[in-house]
């Protein structure tokens, strides 16, 4: 299966992925409705995008009480809007924090890989996000551990 391969060192924090994502997902240029989210590190001197891993367990999918989360043609876990009642169980069942709730539609929403043509990949100017046939892994761990270490070293973790 093709997955979103993240190379955090290449991310410049421009947020084009969030803007493109929200436009495709909800039809608005609204990063708050994006399902890929760029996180700042080291006091906003470096950044990395974070999104659903399309994990094997599919905690959101197995938790859904009405079968409203399925697997689409791209292999992504996808919310069926006409089945979702907005109970939020998937948002708490997902241990990655990548299922969201839209208060205006009262539905859950998440990364569905844009059905196989992810907008974030097109939008990223530095190829920090690529769509490739590789095994998914924890792309951000080492990057974040190193950068957070700088923060801990400089101020002991306190603001």
């Amino acid at each position: 299966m093709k997955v979103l391969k993240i190379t955090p060192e290449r991310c410049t924090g421009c947020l084009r992925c969030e803007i493109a994502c929200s436009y495709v997902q909800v039809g608005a240029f609204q990063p708050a409705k994006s399902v890929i989210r760029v996180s700042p590190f080291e006091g906003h001197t470096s950044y990395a995008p974070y999104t659903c891993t399309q994990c094997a367990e599919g905690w959101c999918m197995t938790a859904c009480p009405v079968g409203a989360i399925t697997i689409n043609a791209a292999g992504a876990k996808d919310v069926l809007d006409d089945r979702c009642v907005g109970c939020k169980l998937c948002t708490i069942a997902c241990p990655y924090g990548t299922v969201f709730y839209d208060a205006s539609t009262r539905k859950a929403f998440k990364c569905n890989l844009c059905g196989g043509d992810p907008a974030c990949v097109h939008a990223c100017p530095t190829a920090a996000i690529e769509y490739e046939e590789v095994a998914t892994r924890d792309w951000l761990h080492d990057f974040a551990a190193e950068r957070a270490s700088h923060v801990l070293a400089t101020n002991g973790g306190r603001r």
Partner: protein
Amino acid sequence: MPRRHLIIGGGTAGMNAMRTIREEEREPSEITLVSAEKPYSRMVLPYYLDRSIAEQHVFTTSAALLAQWKVKTHVGRRAAALDTKANVCTLDDGSKVEYDDCLIATGSSAVRAPVPGADGANVHSFWTLDECRGVIASVTPGSHVVMIGAGFISFTILNSILALGAKLTIVEVAPRILPRMIDDAGAEVIEEWLRAHGVTIRTNVKVTKIEDARGKKRVKFASGGDLVCDVVIMATGIKTNLEWLKDSGVRMNRGIIVDDHLRSNVPNVYAAGDVAEGRDLVSGQPALHAIEPTAQEHGRVVGANMAGKDVAYKGSLIINIVEVCHLDAASFGAWDDAKADTVVGAKRDRSAYRKYLFTGDRLTGAIIIGRSGDVWTTNDVGMLKGLVQTGVRLGRFKDYLKAHPFDVKTAYIASGTAGTLLPETVLGRPAKAPGETPVAV
């Protein structure tokens, strides 16, 4: 290999078990379902109550789908006795079902506080579909509804009652709301929010009587100050449906005691969901978790084991989330552990509250409250679940989280939580999408 499986109870646990049997089995087997009600999802009843979905939407299966799964059904029947020596279950109409192995997933029922008038007209419980229909028939725009009990069940229907245009008063015998889901400080944040959104809350009051009062109801309290209303909803707790097993030889404590394969002391009798006293993931101790995700995971593990797999269950994580008037409140794991190393964060002006409980350098419990519209609240809900579920060692990021309780993601990502989670599955293989079930029969 057991050829005749009996599933007693058509709720979440029973449905997941049947589906998993069909997913996992190599050879066709017989499945018989005994279910007092036509299977539906209790989780979505609040959305039917406020009519944001049609009644049809609550059902989790249909006669056609059960026929496709080759399930023999006894819907509308209850199990009345289990003979574990003869492997026979007797139903409430006297008919008998033989089995090679069976799953007890009979769930819970609502209990009403034992006060005079609790069984009167226009006094409702809210637990089953029938009870939901009863509330729907009673509540109209402008009705005054008094909910007795400020626990999780009340809070799941609070939005719906308000959406129906009713006026709502919640009364609670304890000094505070949500005593089994949120700590004192968190409860205060939610109470304040609800008062600001027009909900009347009376805590520390004991109901003594519910009377008819010229077409209305009068709720009387030990401390005085009667309430006159149109509808009373009693959300005063639930109890497990286990009385029918008392002579069965199945060992019970608060629920049926099960091992890591969800087997009872009788090797071919399993239990799942509300009635199963299984392993708590965080404490490792036996516990009753009357929540949807536990019923779902239990059901799948039992289904796989009934189909001949050898699936051990790591234990269930207690998780609860409720949204009231666009404020989210969630708790995970051992959120009330008095021995834990604890940190609290609050932004009172945004009704945001966090509490993290650590054992060593692992997060073993958490509470999060925040506005549903706050972007990072929803991210953090899942990440906190991931931290508690994995028990990942936070090392130096424990201090980071204590210093920055509103920046969960740095500690989450930097401690490698996602990498710990990626290989994890409940059944030892990727989950299948609903509707993708291959039928071997």
